[in-house]
């Protein structure tokens, strides 16, 4: 009778150490985990240039040339501009149809192209700051249009509809062209 009782006891797996093992693994994963979310400015590069094909003609008024030179100065259509001005200038240019209707600025937001050019010595930091302003201008235009049409922020709107049905996106496409820097200088 005693022997039978003992054999039943040894059949059990001890459970007390399990929590310790789990703790050990937990601490390991806690240490190695890096919860860093990848954030950044998303861009689409143009496809490689085709030597046989001429670039499509673009009317000059539809093109905004932004040059960031080696000293970090921003030139918009050959005129000096400071960084905080960039956003307003881009918005005026892209949304000209609904604003000033200046004959020298873009015909419609869909035809507007913002061309960004840099020198080889341009500091990367200033380039990103400038790009941030341009993206910010487009974001504000989209937000305004979204509030006008649907009464919600663009971010909420774009989460609800698919990419194809996104009319705001179609209204203000981000036509940003990254030009190659001058080989010289």
């Amino acid at each position, binding site marked *: 009778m005693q022997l039978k009782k003992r054999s039943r006891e040894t059949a059990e797996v001890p459970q007390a150490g399990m929590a310790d093992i789990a703790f050990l693994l937990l601490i390991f994963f806690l240490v190695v985990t890096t919860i860093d979310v*990848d*954030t950044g*400015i998303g*861009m689409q590069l143009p496809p490689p240039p085709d030597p046989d094909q001429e670039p499509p003609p673009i009317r000059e008024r539809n093109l905004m040339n932004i040059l960031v030179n080696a000293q970090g100065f921003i030139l918009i259509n050959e005129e000096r501009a400071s960084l905080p001005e960039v956003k307003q200038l881009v918005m005026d240019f892209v949304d000209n149809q609904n604003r000033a209707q200046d004959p020298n600025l873009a015909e419609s937001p869909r035809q507007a192209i913002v061309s960004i050019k840099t020198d080889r010595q341009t500091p990367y930091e200033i380039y990103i700051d400038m790009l941030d302003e341009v993206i910010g201008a487009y974001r504000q235009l989209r937000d305004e249009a979204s509030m006008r049409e649907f009464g919600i922020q663009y971010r909420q709107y774009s989460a609800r509809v698919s990419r194809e049905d996104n009319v705001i996106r179609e209204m203000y496409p981000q036509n940003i062209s990254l030009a190659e820097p001058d080989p010289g200088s």
Partner: protein
Amino acid sequence: MSKFQKKQAGTKQQVPTAAMPDIIFMLLIFFMVVTVLREVELQVRVDFTRADNIEKIEQKRLVSYIYIGPEILGGGQFGDTRVQIDDALVDDIFAIRRMMYDKLMEEPRLIVSLRVDQKSEMGIVSDVQQELREAGTLRINYSTLRGAQAPM
């Protein structure tokens, strides 16, 4: 009075610990899922710039990183600006084309995250961009942190 005292004595003072392993396991599984083991050893210094109008990359599996920054020489010294892909520094910039093309074949929806040191110059960045264009990996992302812009 005695009745009240007896009742209090009858309640257990201990916190039940039977469910603790379950809770620990739950946490463990959470961390196992979110963990991305660091697979690259950085050989270049990358201090991110800051920007406000940024977006999150939701699908981390699609991302491939290119690091651009001054080479770490050890002892707090930094060398010339170099390009690092995966674990190796790239000597020939035209080799990027081939490498990225191979990656694109494996993952057609590839996003290339450019992690560039803020003190870099645009020359090398645009060289890499030209290579990416040739490779056909057109979706890129300039990695930045959220926050106010650094004073100029």
